[in-house]
């Protein structure tokens, strides 16, 4: 683990009742901000990160020393323009970048939680993060924005706090995790659990790390973030630093080498137990179920303006699932726009340099801000 200096933390004193029935209090929520809050405090955007993201949205991440996960979209003059908006992002509950998670000590036993940490839901995550509004004395956010699991938090947030945001931008997400989504997450969790070093989640006390398992989990997940066409065009059957097949099990193909690399760099920055907790939270996400099968009821109390974005080649959270959110909103006459962006970059499109997406997001936010 890296030394986590430069991490801003809000200690949430009041008890938070979790969906699992347990309560937590006096727990840390790590966050970062970009840009500055204006006098009216009406230019704040709460960005929610995806499964393996963190609060370091843009610029250089002080822990990993790499670009923030949404550097393409967030920054001065970018889609989410930090010259104009005050951007807040928190590390989710259960995460491993400073917020309360399985790597923390259990105050009752003084031992690292591991899998004794309570199971977290998307609902718990947003209920923890809403405390940031009080902390900054913000009555109403200009926008809540997020892709993938961040989009799920966006939906849960506006459902829980219907008058706390003017605009709502769920990107490449779903209102209910599908069997296929759960299946892929389970594959990742089983990869971690089958690594001997995982030791039933007690690896931090044993000073061993389930690197192999976590990296296999990442490799499998990474495939789901890309599209077949994207992979084919980038790698095809190209060989890795060799002229011919070696008739062995080394990485003959570039795609193999690429996935191995993705797996190996991931374990340096991510905690295996956090991976279990956060994927579980995604699997438990079912906003449709929370409202007895009628998603429209999740949004009945809000007057916010929605803009839903999906990508043509995203097969993990396909357009149809995003459209179901639009349909539920139209059914109650809510203000909702929707666009499917053409891209070959799969689910990852929202994180990458996809000009149509970046331009559309900027246009929506800036226009809505000037007309607010």
């Amino acid at each position, binding site marked *: 683990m890296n030394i986590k200096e430069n991490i801003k933390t809000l200690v949430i004193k009041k008890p938070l009742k979790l969906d699992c029935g347990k309560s937590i209090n006096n727990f840390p929520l790590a966050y970062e901000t970009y840009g500055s809050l204006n006098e009216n405090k009406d230019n704040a955007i709460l960005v929610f990160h995806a499964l393996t993201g963190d609060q370091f949205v843009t610029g250089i991440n002080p822990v990993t020393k790499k670009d923030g996960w949404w550097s393409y979209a967030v920054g001065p003059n970018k889609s989410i323009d930090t010259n104009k908006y005050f951007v807040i992002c928190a590390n989710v509950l259960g995460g491993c970048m400073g917020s309360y998670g399985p790597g923390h000590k259990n105050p009752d036993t003084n031992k690292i939680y591991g899998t004794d940490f309570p199971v977290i839901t998307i609902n718990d995550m947003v209920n923890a993060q809403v405390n940031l509004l009080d902390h900054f004395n913000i009555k109403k956010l200009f926008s809540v924005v997020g892709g993938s699991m961040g989009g799920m938090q966006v939906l849960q947030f506006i459902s829980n706090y219907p008058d706390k945001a003017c605009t709502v931008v769920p990107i490449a997400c779903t209102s209910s995790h599908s069997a296929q989504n759960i299946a892929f997450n389970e594959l990742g969790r089983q990869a971690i659990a089958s690594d001997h070093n995982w030791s039933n989640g007690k690896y931090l006390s044993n000073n061993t790390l389930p690197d192999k398992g976590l990296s296999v989990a990442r490799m499998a997940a990474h495939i789901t973030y890309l599209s077949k066409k994207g992979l084919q065009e980038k790698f095809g059957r190209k060989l890795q630093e060799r002229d011919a097949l070696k008739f062995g099990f080394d990485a003959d193909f570039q795609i193999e080498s690429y996935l191995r690399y993705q797996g190996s760099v991931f374990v340096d920055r991510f905690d295996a137990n956090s991976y279990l907790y956060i994927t579980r939270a995604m699997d438990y996400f079912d906003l449709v179920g929370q409202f007895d099968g009628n998603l429209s009821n999740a949004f009945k109390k809000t007057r916010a303006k929605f803009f839903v974005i999906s990508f043509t080649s995203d097969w993990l959270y396909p357009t149809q699932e995003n459209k179901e959110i639009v349909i539920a909103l139209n059914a109650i006459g809510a203000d909702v*726009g929707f666009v499917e962006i053409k891209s070959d970059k799969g689910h990852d499109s929202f994180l990458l340099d996809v000009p149509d997406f970046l*331009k*559309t997001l900027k246009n929506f936010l800036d*226009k809505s801000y000037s007309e607010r």
Partner: protein
Amino acid sequence: MKTEYKIIVDLIEEKTRVLDVGCDDGTLMESLKKNKNVDARGIEISKDKVQTCVSKGLTVIEGNAEFDLKQFPNDSFDYVVLGQTLQAFVNPEVVIKELLRVGKKTIITIPNFGNWKVRLNLLIKGTMPITKSLPNDWYNTPNIHMCTIKDFVKFSKIINFKIFKSLALTNRNISNINNSNLFYKNLFAELGIFLIEK
């Protein structure tokens, strides 16, 4: 702005809820917002045009009217507008019924295939008519269900909807269509504009 749009704006009452089906680049929606203070929503099939609308601050969803009107409840809009696209649908009958269901009132405009230039074109040349308002060849036209003003009036009786107002646009002149002048309007008008109800 196109005369057609001016007529539509005139037909729509202030502060109403309007759905523009096939809203193109949002020109009509903008005008409706500005002149009639309406709550305008659009549905558009082209990604580029949806993005143009978003850049204008308009609320538009990308979708195909043939399938995507289902999501709107009955009577959820005061007006539904369909400008010159009825002829492009695979099943115009289903689309009209959906428009009438979703909107309390529906405004439909149709390029008139009964116009004398179109008739003459076919009569003299013996090939599928190509005119200013119908610029495509038969093999690449999106218009697969062309009709005339007279056809549309007949259609209202077949699937049983009421025509409250019918206007003809001829050389930028607007005139009323009624039973006694239908023959002439069908011969001379370039565009028919209808305000209909279920």
